[in-house]
């Protein structure tokens, strides 16, 4: 069960990495700059970066469990 949950977590993290990528890349496209301005661009960039960091942290935890299921406490 622990492995299954870790795989699901890994998939969720991967999905969030894609979202982070879209946030960051869209911070630099013309439409965002013209329609929403600098604050929206900065928000997209910051939001994307934070999502990427948290997604990587979850992915690392998932991989740790997949490599050694008994390593997680309990």
């Amino acid at each position, binding site marked *: 069960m622990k492995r299954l949950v870790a795989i699901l977590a890994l998939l969720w993290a991967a999905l969030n990495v894609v979202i982070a990528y879209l946030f960051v*890349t869209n911070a630099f*496209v013309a439409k965002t700059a013209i329609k929403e301005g600098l604050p929206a661009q900065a928000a997209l960039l910051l939001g994307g970066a934070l999502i990427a960091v948290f997604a990587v942290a979850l992915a690392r935890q998932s991989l740790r469990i997949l490599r050694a299921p008994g390593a997680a406490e309990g």
Partner: protein
Amino acid sequence: MGVAVRWLLVLAGIAIAAAGGYVSLAQAGSGAQPWDPELSDNFVFMRALPFALGLGAVVGLFRAGGWKPAVRRGDQIRRFSPGTVIGHWIATIGFVIALPTGLWQYLGGILSQDVPAPGGQLLLDLFHPVPLYWFYRLHYIGAAFVLFSVANFGAYWWVNRDRALLVPRGEWRLHLTGFALEVPRMFGARLAAPLKLDLTQRLPQPRPFTYYETAFSFPTWTFALALITITGLLKAMRYIYPIPGPVLYWASTLHVAAMVLLVLKVLDHFRYTLARWPLMVAMTRGWVSEGALRRVLDTIARPGPWHPEPTLPATAPAGVAGGSER
């Protein structure tokens, strides 16, 4: 409140919610409405909102005044009541539906430009066969689950006066210190310096929740959920009440900000509980073995390199790592 009365309240709540949902859907499907599917869904959602909130409040009140399950079974401690476990997973379903569909609504608008960001066209092509109103429809269904959960837990905690997840009055400094000691030292030191936290002090054993949960996780969940609920309600209200433009603009902006916060919260919550498997088990079974919970709390409550000794003596009486809200 008697058992019969409480059951009557819940049954009445379910009946009213079902009737409200039926009437709303019947109106939408009558063919007499002039709106397209997307706008029609907006109206259905807006009309269903009071019923979702009301049903959640009734269920929360029912749980708060009701049956108190056993708190100990051998070495097993009840950490969560069945109602809390079910409520948690209802909220989870809500997030799993509402977050991706909400993100698609937001990103779809940006992606659908003449020259989308790299990879954007791929996603647009992938989801092209799915009508946009389906994303809104699913988002509203997920949001209804989340709103039900907010009302359910709000009413439950309000009535049963369980404050285990709140930092007690005058103890913020203690809990922030515990939190600073739980996170990696680099972050803990950065948090401690501006707040002048003493990381060398001996901390009491956290219970029933860790300092991370009380000082950081629960307050940020509360903030993000309150923000997305208020802004979401304002956005939905515009179909029945003229919301001023600037208010609507800020409600929409903050709704997106709350969505990003919740994306981060889900990731962080998943990471935290995955690393502490007994907590994950407790949220499915309600029960956790005392030894496993003790190990989780001991590890989390490490006093840092300044005090390497464990905070919970091996001779501590049974139940010291007791259950949480029930």
